[in-house]
């Protein structure tokens, strides 16, 4: 009975990917809790806190297949504790009373927080992998279109010539910073939690520190001396980091969406073979994936707000904050990873119409190089005077329907100052791209240099 779009089965994986859904799958989560209990028992046996036989028994039964899940489910219907019914399930299947040593001296939140970090570690590994792939794709695209001329736009209006490569390296540079942020976030995140009810480790006994260190070591996590039950800035940081990341995707997706407009037609997202865009308009080809990315990013930003708000904990534990985080983190993670996957799809199959780019660049003819003209005339007329003059001439051209070139040539003041070679330059906006090629090359080189230093995995 899936009622959340993340879990839909008939039209699955619109807002999720199978891989991410698996990370946050309910049973996977419970298994992680059991893994924690097994690791704790093992560490406690090693330090002499509980008998070795107890740890062995707990370790051999700490698997969902060994438990009576029906009974655990019944337990949850009667209990409001997030963990106890599962612990009771484990306790019951442990022989010789060894079940008494399950969850020995720890608190529910130790288990759940540690398991959350395990989930986020998997999530970050996926994100890191896909971000790296996206970076490769964008770098390839930037190199391929290094010098493809197109028009740059400000205020939605055609501004000056540029190259598509320059647009793409701008995206790449953001992606590079997200990769670096991901690595930094991971450094601050990969700590488990094992500090007992209010962070004093009281019930963990004299070997508490050693038990905690060993338990988390088994799970591949580090231990922080200080409890972070009520100190959740690293989760807030992850939420903000994801928020920034998907917003870059939203910006890229929106760019594709805009440049796919019928009148512009410079880019389009890859269409599925045989895909039907509209149920009623046979000619339509819609940028659907790009819009999904924008939608996912909106959700992620709002969820990040909720998660950051959850940092404002009261006293040593605050369930209102914690539960807010529980509800928001899986969605935030799944949506982020899904947007990333979509972005990768779009960029890998992006259709680039070099012809339309050229056509649009020549739309306003000479006007698009008005800045070049401005600096040509500045030598003799002065810059502010030229700006005023050209502004007047371009508006005259727009309003009277003559070409800008003609309006410049016919004007007694400007016409006299320009040679015919200079006037010819106006027909070649693709030449007025400043340092675009150098900027593309240098940026690609810089990013590739940094890539070489990155490990394959997080």
């Amino acid at each position, binding site marked *: 009975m899936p009622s959340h779009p993340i879990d839909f089965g008939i039209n699955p994986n619109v807002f999720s990917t199978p891989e991410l859904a698996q990370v946050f799958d309910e049973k996977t989560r419970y298994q992680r809790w059991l893994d924690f209990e097994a690791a704790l028992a093992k560490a406690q046996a090693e330090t002499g806190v509980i008998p070795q036989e107890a740890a062995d028994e707990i370790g051999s039964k700490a698997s969902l297949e060994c438990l009576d899940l029906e009974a655990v489910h019944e337990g949850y219907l009667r209990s409001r504790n997030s963990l106890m019914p599962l612990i009771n399930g484990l306790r019951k299947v442990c022989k010789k009373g060894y079940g008494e040593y399950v969850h020995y001296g720890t608190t529910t939140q130790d288990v759940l927080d540690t398991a959350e970090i395990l989930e986020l570690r998997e999530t970050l590994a996926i994100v890191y992998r896909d971000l790296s792939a996206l970076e490769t794709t964008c770098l390839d695209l930037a190199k391929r279109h290094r010098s493809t001329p197109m028009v740059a736009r400000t205020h939605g209006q055609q501004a000056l010539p540029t190259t598509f490569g320059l647009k793409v390296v701008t995206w790449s540079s953001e992606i590079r910073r997200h990769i670096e942020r991901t690595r930094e976030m991971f450094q601050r995140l990969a700590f488990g939690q094992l500090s007992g009810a209010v962070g004093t480790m009281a019930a963990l006994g004299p070997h508490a520190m050693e038990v905690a260190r060993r338990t988390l070591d088994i799970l591949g996590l580090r231990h922080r001396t200080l409890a972070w039950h009520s100190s959740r800035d690293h989760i807030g940081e992850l939420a903000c980091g994801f928020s920034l990341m998907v917003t870059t995707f939203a910006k890229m997706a929106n760019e594709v969406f805009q440049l796919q407009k019928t*009148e512009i037609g410079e880019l389009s997202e890859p269409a599925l073979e045989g895909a039907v865009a509209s149920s009623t308009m046979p000619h339509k080809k819609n940028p659907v994936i790009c819009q999904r990315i924008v939608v996912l990013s909106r959700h992620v930003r709002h969820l990040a707000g909720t998660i950051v708000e959850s940092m404002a904990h009261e006293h040593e534990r605050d369930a209102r904050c914690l539960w807010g985080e529980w509800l928001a983190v899986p969605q935030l993670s799944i949506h982020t990873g899904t947007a990333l996957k979509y972005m990768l799809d779009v960029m890998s199959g992006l259709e680039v119409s070099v012809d339309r780019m050229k056509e649009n660049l020549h739309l*306003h003819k000479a006007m698009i190089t008005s*800045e070049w*003209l*401005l600096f040509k005339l500045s030598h003799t007329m002065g810059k502010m005077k030229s700006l005023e003059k*050209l502004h007047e001439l371009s508006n005259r051209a727009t309003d009277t329907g003559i070409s800008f070139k003609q309006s410049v040539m016919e004007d007694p003041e400007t016409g006299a100052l320009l040679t015919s070679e200079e006037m010819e330059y106006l027909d070649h906006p693709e030449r007025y791209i400043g340092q675009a090629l150098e900027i593309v090359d240098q940026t690609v080189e810089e990013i590739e240099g940094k890539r070489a230093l990155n490990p394959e995995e997080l």
Partner: protein
Amino acid sequence: MANCELNSHIIDSRFYSGGYTTEEARRVFCDKYRYQRWIEVEAAMASAQADLGLIPKWAAEALNEKAHLRYLDLNAIREGIKTTSHSLLPLLRAWQEVCDGAAGEFIHFGATTQDIQDTAQVLEIRDILAIVERDLTAIVRQVIDLAERYSGLVIIGRTHTQHALSMTLGLKVAVWLDELWRNVERLTACKERVLVSQLFGGVGTMDAFGDKGLELLSQFSQRLKLKAPLTAWHASRDRGAEFLGTMAMISSTFAKIANEIRCLARSETGELEEPFQMGKVGSSTMPHKRNPEMCEQVIVLARLIKANAALGFEGIINEHERDYRAVRLEWVTITDTSLFICGLLSLIKSILKDLIIHEDRIRENVDKAATLISTEALMFFLGETIGKQTAHKIVYEISMEAIETSQPLVDLLMNHEEIEGKFSREDVERTIDPKNHVGMSEELTHRTVAYVKKRLLATGPCEEGERSCPLSDRGECCSA
């Protein structure tokens, strides 16, 4: 007042304020006027209390006589706020100073600070709502005019940014109009609920007013022309949130309209353009630029207003009988939203007043799309004579050829061996003319215009308050 020279909020900038608000709106929230309002609310309470015998008549008269900022020492008030950390008491003390004899003893008799400040805030909201209503109604008229003028102008409709089907510009505008009218209705409903007074004492029991509390509330409210609420709303702030939410809805509708104009103004589309006059400069380095900056500013303001609406919901969550964390939030959110919405409405009025409609570009775009969007109609028309399957094959081939070679579809079709001589060019052109595929566009437009016009007639003229600086006669008026 030394700080008259400091204008560090963009709202008060002597250079940029106009992009964010209007002089008229700033006057409503000028801090001097705010004090003047507080003191007027206090004076109204004193008069009502005298009528009910709660305080002596002579005292109320003496208080009213000096209930004006021009008599008070503003510097002393400022110093007083620093030492007492109280927002109201220093003003009341300064007032007491200038009142004759013992009259000052009857100031603020049994009210709580928030009674005065909340009531005064509602008076500010009332002024703002009057401006919003006036401007919104004016805009509705502008939009009606546009819808009527362009009810038959065929334009391409777009979905997913792609050319979809033809429609009329009138219908596009009529959809705006319909939404705008719902906003007018929201505004009316909001006024009904929000414009109430507050006079309930410390925790809302009216204890200090003895058994005259309810009567006092009623007379006090009448004097200020506000409705009397059933219970205290010190900690019940849904009204503020509704105001912020309503303003957010209104401004979001305008953001959508402004964004539509901005999109249709793109160089490649060029169908609409916000008003332009010589001298307006788009770019400091690209002389040819004409930017839709007013539309963009509308979107900026709508975003700010929308963010405040979210804070409005935060403000509903109050603890116990009073919670300053909520009320002090409103002092910023309600003020900013009010200032911004007035700026937004003024921009929209200017945009719509001289909106440039490039009919030639509209026609050009729709003609470009015509062949693609009318192929179905063409196929059925040809099919009647040559069979539908055959027609599908021919139209498909010709469409692809037209796209690839950029030749007009009709030319290609008329030269096709199976078509030549069987159909007249005129009939073919009529079949694919986008004008014949706008469905009920015109009827829908006229229907909507008629509906709104009828309701517009039923609403009376808006009341407007005149506002001048309470210190203008002391020469301390900064905006004059």
